């Protein structure tokens, strides 16, 4: 791979990342009524992080922290209803009037999806670390030359 091609790819990744993050956020919130959800959103965020790591911009190190936080949130959503005498995973639905956006209906599924997304992202980051992402942070060109 030539230097020019590599910098094109890096530029592409840099340019596409914000849009991918927006798509991920959309999937996270849309999941309740449209295709999407925590799993898909987590994969989009994970893919963004993975691409940026490969391009050498960034090397996330908080994979296990994210996984732990996600497990806490997910387990919390599952157990919370028990506190007020409900059963496991009793769904709470909340309707909010938000200026500009109109009525927003959300519920405990949203934090649950957030937790799932955090676990997925954390797993992707852990896998990146396991695959030796550290080398990319040091020198983004190195793997291409090795091959």
């Amino acid at each position, binding site marked *: 791979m030539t230097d020019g091609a590599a910098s094109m790819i890096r530029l592409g990744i840099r340019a596409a990342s914000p849009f991918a993050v927006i798509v991920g956020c959309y*999937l996270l919130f849309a999941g309740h009524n449209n295709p999407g*959800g925590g799993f898909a959103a987590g*994969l989009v965020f994970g*893919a963004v992080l993975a691409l940026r790591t490969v391009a050498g911009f960034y090397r996330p190190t908080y994979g296990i922290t994210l996984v732990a936080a996600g*497990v806490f949130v997910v387990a919390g959503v599952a157990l919370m209803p028990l506190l007020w005498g409900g*059963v*496991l995973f009793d769904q709470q639905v909340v309707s909010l009037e938000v200026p500009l956006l109109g009525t927003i209906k959300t519920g405990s599924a949203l934090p649950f999806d957030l937790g799932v997304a955090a676990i997925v992202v954390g*797993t992707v980051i852990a896998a990146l670390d396991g695959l030796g*992402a550290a080398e*990319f942070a040091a020198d983004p060109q190195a793997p291409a030359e090795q091959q």
Partner: protein
Amino acid sequence: MIGGLLLSHAAVCLVLAAAGRRLGRGSLLVAAVPPAAATVWGVTRLGGEEPAVAHVSWVDGLDLAMTFRVDAFAGIMTLIVSGIGVAVFVYAFGYFSAADPAMGRFATTLLAFSAAMLGLVWSDSVWSLFVFWELTSVTSFLLVGHKSTDAGVLAAARRALMVTGGGGLALLAGLLLVTRAADATLLSDLGPVQGASAVVGAVLVMVAAATKSAQVPFHAWLPGAMVAPTPVSAYLHSATMVKAGVVLVAVAGPALGSLAAWKALGLAFGIASIFWGAVGALRHRDAKLILAWGTVSQLGMLITLFSVGTAHAVLAAVALLVAHALFKGALFLIVGEIDVRAGTRNIDELGGLARSMPIACFAAVLAGMSMAGAPPLLGFVAKETAIAAALDLEGPEAWIVGFGVIGGSVLTVAYTVRFLIAVFGAGPQTPLAPGRGALPAPSVILAAAGVAGYGALGVVDDLVGEAAARLSGAAVGHLHRWPGLTLELGVSAVVLAIGALVGLAVSRRPPRMPADLGARWTDASIDGSVAFGRTVCARVQHGSLPVYLVTMTSVAALAATPFLADVSVDHLVVWHRPLQVLLAAAVISAAVALCFVGTRLGAGLALGGAGIAVAAIFVIHGAPDLALTQLLVEATIVVGFVLAFGHLSRSFPLTGARWRAVRMAIAGLGGAAVVIGLGAASANPSGSPPVAEMATAAANEGGGGNIVNVILTDIRGLDTLGEVLVLATVALGVVALARASSGTASEQSAGTASERATDAASEPA
């Protein structure tokens, strides 16, 4: 109230875990508050007719509700668990020095144990019982291993955990069999059971009880557990936790008592423990070990009486249960006080304590007399009743039980006499540290309770009688303060005389340290199991990724063979839409190409092609969620490949024809298994898919329009929870592998780790 009490225990546990370091020794007094509340509640409920019931259905659709029921027997156990708990917490406040840094942790664990034990005795659902049973094992392990810097302590803690934890597994299996046979999961609903599986279940439950209650041959962990601080020994290993097995035998008795195997096994465990425990108490020279071996013997007596199961025997057993908790708790606390002040528990180094510790000596004599079964104490009543119950029996059982109860009583008197002479008898005066405020009071109270129980026998008789009637399901007799000139009183007198003579004779014996064979054998069998596990693990987990894959695929293929006959050609449709054919062709050609590609990059591309074609098939079938996820997974995996390729050679290492043929055959096998599975499933539809119901449920209950997602987050939320936990575990595993390989840092191990990590990263698919 039941739930509130358990939650208050848990809440105080959390507070202590957070603030224990700041509170220091004061944590112990804070920890005494919830047991005190439970004691007060237990006292106010005494004599009530209706059992208190609580029911928490925490997951719909599964028969896993937490159900509690506090009847007369559970009420007595509440007083033992929480009442002695309060005494022990107060005692521990005096026992530990103020400078001990680990007090917060200790108080938290001890309170957690107290809560688990309460949950256990209150449980009506066998599953709650099992959960709390295991919790007591775990907290006991933590408390035995409190001084975690000492290798001997750790070995003892491991022994306790392995034996009681193994018993927990037997309990789970036994409960599954018994509840199936009885078709009930509430202890109060269990009726008499029949059949072979019920017998196996009963045997497993009895074995579990024997491990927890330290019955021969599972007894070795209990003397070993005496390395724990004395409050733990007094509370867990004499008054409460070791009673869990006895409680189990008691509450399961109505259902399983009619099985011959249950009774025979219970009598075998019980009588063997009565004698071997008493022999141990006569051999050992550590005052605490003498008491611990005595506990083994007394627990054997309890198991024997509950296994006999007649109304009279159950009455005696409940009375002995109460008496034992009082006198053994008191004796342990006194030994702990001696340990703190004299700095030793070895009976050869103790002397003149009767003069220097008069209060402790007085309390010990009271408690010892109760243990030996001498009037005017509660132990006397319990033993009289036990002997009378044994004499009531007929046939060979009378001889066996009579031999156990009367022989055991003789030896109990003997080791009590030896204990009192050895600890408080004459000898060179042992130097003592100054006394500590809170230490003597709890033991004196517990010892005096034995006298009070004898004095107010009418009250005790009401409570014990009611509990025994609940357990045996029949009208029971009464406890007698003085039986009159009956046969059992004569037997008692002879027992006391012979026992005292034996005790005097034994205490004259020259000192000799006994070998602890049981502990050695138990440790050897634990080590053997660990070594066996390592060997098997080294064979099975060899680390070769290809062999893992071959094994998994072959097993999946084997699992599909029974369904071969179910596949019916009539139900198989070639295609619904022509586009499917095109996509299927794309998937197949990508898969075949994958087998012939020589480079890793090419293989990655072929895999991606197959994945994208599958995503397109999902779209055709109207499953955009699946397609979206599939595409995203493919994209993420590509990045993973790019990273992994940095460590790997450009081409696959082995590309011979045979290599390829074997792998294609294996892959074909896997494909065939999936085809068979799907074909069989589509040929046998069980009703129509509940899509409409799901859609309604999703909109009404889940409040969402996307059924798939509402299923994931709400309807089958528990499944999703399980799946994301698997994912989290995978992440942990990847990190652990990466750390392990970066530690060795050799080229080869890095490659292996990457390959495994790639495997793990593809898991979300």
